């Protein structure tokens, strides 16, 4: 079942573009990576889905309900971690979390103390006195305390140290195992690679590609490195891209029949050869060129 369905969604701020004719869907129980550089329209998309802003045209639905009509109903099942966390400065962490919990039915005390313990969050400090990373932790606890079935994470790891990042990922994986769908936006690809099932790549307000993370990685692209003396133009052949040379070290991406490139390589006296999978980061840069 589709948890999120976006159909030809467009948002203009006056004349400037937010997103244009965006269409995609997110399946129940998956972790969907939403990748793009700053200003590509990631936050715009999330804000549209949370009905913080209204679409210029197009449709978006969550749990099969129109986001512009059933916002409150939808949001009772949604957790949101904003990319930049701003909360009422004069409140204590505990107070803020209690205030947040009061909007969802049920008792969330135990859940809050569990999450605060995992994220090592001190409850009796004022929000004003917290560092950026600690505010982010408040955001994480606040986003998870009501056991949402859909999570929006907007560049969630900025400000967290590597140790906290790992704990956070463990937490997200744990939630995902319970069946929680995760919409994870980022411009940092390493983290998406470790966590996501599928990724959508957004660029200048348009979806460039949506694919399975393994397909994207395998997509027949090989990263080939050759050390040895050879002619500058020796690897200029169909299927080769991103060719770099540094002294005797040559590196390129290749997609096509691997035998052809091996034949070409065997024509030279080489010292070393490496054939590997490109990282998502590298594939990603490829989409940008």
């Amino acid at each position: 079942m589709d948890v999120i369905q976006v159909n030809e969604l467009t948002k203009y701020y006056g004349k400037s573009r937010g997103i244009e004719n965006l269409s995609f869907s997110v399946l129940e129980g998956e972790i969907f990576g939403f990748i793009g550089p700053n200003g590509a329209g990631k936050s715009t998309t999330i804000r549209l889905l949370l009905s913080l802003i209204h679409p210029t045209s197009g449709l978006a639905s969550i749990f099969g309900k129109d986001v512009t009509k059933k916002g409150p109903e939808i949001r009772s099942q949604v957790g949101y971690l904003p990319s930049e966390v701003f909360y009422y400065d004069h409140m204590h962490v505990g107070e803020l979390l209690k205030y947040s919990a009061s909007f969802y039915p049920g008792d969330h005390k135990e859940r809050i103390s569990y999450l605060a313990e995992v994220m090592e969050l001190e409850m009796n400090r004022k929000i004003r006195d917290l560092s950026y990373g600690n505010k982010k932790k408040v955001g994480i606890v606040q986003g998870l305390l009501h056991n949402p079935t859909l999570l929006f994470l907007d560049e969630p790891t900025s400000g967290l140290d590597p140790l906290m990042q790992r704990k956070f990922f463990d937490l997200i994986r744990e939630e995902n195992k319970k069946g929680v769908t995760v919409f994870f936006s980022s411009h940092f690809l390493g983290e998406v690679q470790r966590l996501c099932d599928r990724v959508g790549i957004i660029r200048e307000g348009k979806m460039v590609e949506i694919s399975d993370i393994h397909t994207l990685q395998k997509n027949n692209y090989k990263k080939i490195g050759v050390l040895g003396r050879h002619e500058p133009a020796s690897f200029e052949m169909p299927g080769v891209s991103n060719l770099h040379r540094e002294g005797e070290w040559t590196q390129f991406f290749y997609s096509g029949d691997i035998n052809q490139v091996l034949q070409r390589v065997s024509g030279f006296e080489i010292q070393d050869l490496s054939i590997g999978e490109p990282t998502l980061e590298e594939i990603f840069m490829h989409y940008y060129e």
Partner: protein
Amino acid sequence: MNRAIYRYELRQRWSSVGIWAGSLAALLLTFMALFPSFSADMAAMNQVLDNFPPEFKAVFGLNALNLATLEGYFGFCFVFCQLCLAIQAANYGLGLVSVEEDELTADFLLTRPLSRPTILTSKLLATLTSLLVTQILFWAVSLASIAMFRGEGPYEPRAIMLLLGSGVIFQLLFFSLGLMISLMVRRMHSVTPWSLGLAFGTYVIGAFSGILGDVKLEYLSPFKHFDPGKIIRDLQYDMPVLIVDVMIVVVAISVSYWLYQKRDIASPS
């Protein structure tokens, strides 16, 4: 309405209500304490006033007020209280949703499972409660200061009640207009210049219309809608104007709900 929001918003404004009510009390008590000595020497005071040009007197509404009577003197003080009440109400109206947007905390409530009308109603009722508390304190101080300093002379209690009552509509007017204006601009960075502008601007328009005697300008200024001189003289409100004012309040608040419902909340980044 959501109780948690109501309670939170109310707590936010306690100190502000205290400061406004305290300032109003200090203003009134200081002015009214001078009334006994003032009324004792009225002949001399009237002579001084007669030497002022009529334009000057018109600015302060002195041409229509008889300072020798208690209600006239109170009406004179009331003009300054009106200014304070206007600034306070405009401040609350302008800041009702814009402060959270400026401090970038607006996302917090708007991503909870609450509809926008629920959020606005909760905030609105909390603010109206704050204004009600201000009014109760203001009435109490007004009546107390009159009881303390009225002296022996007769006075018209109906005039005092009408004046105090006008303060309520006056605040509603500035509050609802402030709210509507704040929702008509994309982002309001600071509330105070706007509220001071709104209050002093309309006051100055009212004062000038007094000088020019221009009836059309009068209608633009709520200060002239509830001119203390006129209220004391007629012992009633100008009914058509009052009805228009109540309608403005209703329309401004309805428009605010509509604007808030379709508002795009600016992103923090």
